[in-house]
């Protein structure tokens, strides 16, 4: 684990602005060191020794055909397996820095935090990817869907860094799949620069330990960070889905930089026995008149632990801000554990804010109701659990992907999947079979 937080030397050939950032990051990382539970923002993430875990079979179900598919395997861009249309600029961060591509100076500058993951990842930027999404829609008018598949084929430490630069007025849906070897220790940082009036849906599917190969290894780590800056009138919708085996921590830093900017952060986790899933979010209302909303839903199996710390920062000058928070966890066993911490830090009075947190178990009356209609216990539970996650899944703009997420969640918890899916379209009258 320690190698994840050891800064690499600053390359000699980078421009001045990046040299300053890299050197500052290296100094700060030396100062703060690898994260421990002594840090408030890492208090629920235990990075110590972990029991061996087996890989989970990767489902074959996939979402609708993406506009672009980018594969990163073991930290390297796999150009052979990637498919990128001409309208999209995809290249290595090193190349983007050298060519001074649009928005590249956002690299390492989106979240100004002493966050060890962000600091460490920056020094390993060279192998990362730069993706530029231009304004306007392609022919046909559909919102482009960019799929980024980040795979690990072996145990050991991995750095991945991606910068998405989304032009003003553009619309895009980005799906990241982080999957592969259960013994991999990953530190993955995604930065998103949302241009003025742009709309970005970002879905991060945390599937660490899900792989096509049968493998058992000392459980790895999946430390993911998504940092977004949102310009005036921009909309950033984050969907963090944590289904990994082992220890995972996903952090989202969203900074609202312009009036009318909006951030909606949603998180969904299904935590199996022996695993821990942590979600940490910070929304910074840096200007007046921005809005935000956070919804988290966690399902925790017996012996699992899920933690959520959701912060909102509204400074003295950020008048007219509006924010809501709803954090919920469903305990599926006697020894399941949830930590939910809504945290509003508001320094002015002209703000609308609401928050709520609830930890509970499946409602026995709802279970009885479903069983009294003939559904067996496992199916009734699966239906209620699918219902619990549906609120978040429904916010994913791609219907096929939303169904896939519910399917993964139920499958990951060993429950029958597909039961709650709505395959009954109003005109679906394909059969003439009458009930007898």
């Amino acid at each position, binding site marked *: 684990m320690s190698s994840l937080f050891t800064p690499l030397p600053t390359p000699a050939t980078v421009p001045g602005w990046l040299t300053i950032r890299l050197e500052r990051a290296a100094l700060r990382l030396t100062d703060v060191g690898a994260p421990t539970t002594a840090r408030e923002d890492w208090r629920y993430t235990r990075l110590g020794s972990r029991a061996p875990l087996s890989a989970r079979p990767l489902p074959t179900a996939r979402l609708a055909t993406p506009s672009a598919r980018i594969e990163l395997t073991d930290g390297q861009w796999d150009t052979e397996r990637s498919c990128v249309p001409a309208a999209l600029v995809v290249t290595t961060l090193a190349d983007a820095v050298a060519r001074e591509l649009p928005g590249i100076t956002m690299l390492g500058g989106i979240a100004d935090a002493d966050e060890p993951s962000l600091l460490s990842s920056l020094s390993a930027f060279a192998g990362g990817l730069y993706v530029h999404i231009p304004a306007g829609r392609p022919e046909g008018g559909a919102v482009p869907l960019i799929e980024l598949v980040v795979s690990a084929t072996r145990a050991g430490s991995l750095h991945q860094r991606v910068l998405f630069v989304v032009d003003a007025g553009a619309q895009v849906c980005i799906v990241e799949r982080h999957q592969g070897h259960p013994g991999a220790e990953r530190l993955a940082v995604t930065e998103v620069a949302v241009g003025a009036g742009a709309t970005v849906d970002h879905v991060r599917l945390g599937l660490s330990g899900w792989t096509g190969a049968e493998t058992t290894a000392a459980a790895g780590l999946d430390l993911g960070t998504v940092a977004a800056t949102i310009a005036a009138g921009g909309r950033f919708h984050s969907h963090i889905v944590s289904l990994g085996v082992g220890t995972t921590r996903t952090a989202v830093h969203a900074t609202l930089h312009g009036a009318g900017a909006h951030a909606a952060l949603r998180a969904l986790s299904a935590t199996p026995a022996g695993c821990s899933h942590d979600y940490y979010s910070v929304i910074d209302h840096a200007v007046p008149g921005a809005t935000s909303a956070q919804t988290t839903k966690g399902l925790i199996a017996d012996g699992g632990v899920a933690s959520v710390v959701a912060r909102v920062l509204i400074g003295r000058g950020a008048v007219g801000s509006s924010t809501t928070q709803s954090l919920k966890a469903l305990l599926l066993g006697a020894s399941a554990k949830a930590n939910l911490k809504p945290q509003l830090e508001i320094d002015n009075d002209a703000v609308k804010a609401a928050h709520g947190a609830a930890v509970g178990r499946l409602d*026995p*009356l*709802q279970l*009885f*109701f*479903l*069983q*009294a*209609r*003939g*559904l*067996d*216990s496992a*199916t*009734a539970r699966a*239906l*209620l659990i*699918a*219902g*619990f*996650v*549906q*609120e978040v899944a429904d916010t994913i703009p791609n219907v096929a992907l939303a169904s896939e997420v519910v399917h993964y969640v139920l499958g990951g918890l060993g429950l029958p999947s597909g*039961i*709650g*899916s*709505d*395959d*009954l*379209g*109003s005109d*679906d*009258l*394909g*059969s*003439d*079979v*009458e*009930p*007898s």
Partner: protein
Amino acid sequence: MNLLEIDDLHVTVGETPILVGLNLRIPAGEVHAVMGPNGAGKSTLSYAVAGREGYDVTKGDIRLGGESLLALGPDERARRGVFLAFQYPVEVPGVRSKPFLRAAVNAVRKARGQAELDPGAFLKFLRKTLESVRLDEALTNRDLNSGFSGGEKKRFDILQMALLEPRFCILDETDSGLDIDAMRVVADGVNAMRTPERSMLVITHYQRLLDYIVPDVVHVLKDGRIMRSGDKSLVAELEARGYEWVTSP
């Protein structure tokens, strides 16, 4: 021939005995009404038959078609043909009504040895049944009972009853919260399901529901036992005199 047979039923909830020696026989094809004061054990009776956890049968037996239900879970009882229309149908946010209905119908059909319905066949069946209870299909696109009015919930329960085609139906205070028009619609739906093979137990406080669903036999449940049974004229007597005078079986 009796479809439902209840012998010397004792049920406790927590430590509290609620039913203390209840006996009931309902022949196939008959509708029986159970009336009684608050706290008499009417809902306990419905939950005990449907198999709700926490309603512990400490003595006696409940048989459907000669088979004891006591060792069966609520889902197994439902698949054998027991249907409980809830006094307060449960809201289940997030669970879409239509897939739920299809899953329930297919669970019951599978148990009966019938082919499961594919989406197309189910939709045809659903639409036909919706007409019979005068419900809009739009309701089935919403989450189960979520945001439904009181009347919609009750009619939705009757829709489920019609879809599942049970052998034995319990209507637990189905009239509560219904206006006269809604009660007529619900009663019409129930009456349409009366067949020589199907029996019903209608639990109610008031005469008005029984003006629409006319029972073959009326029972008075009081202090955990059936105290009196009679024909429909017993309802009028109860309306006139209350329950105080019913003091022993």
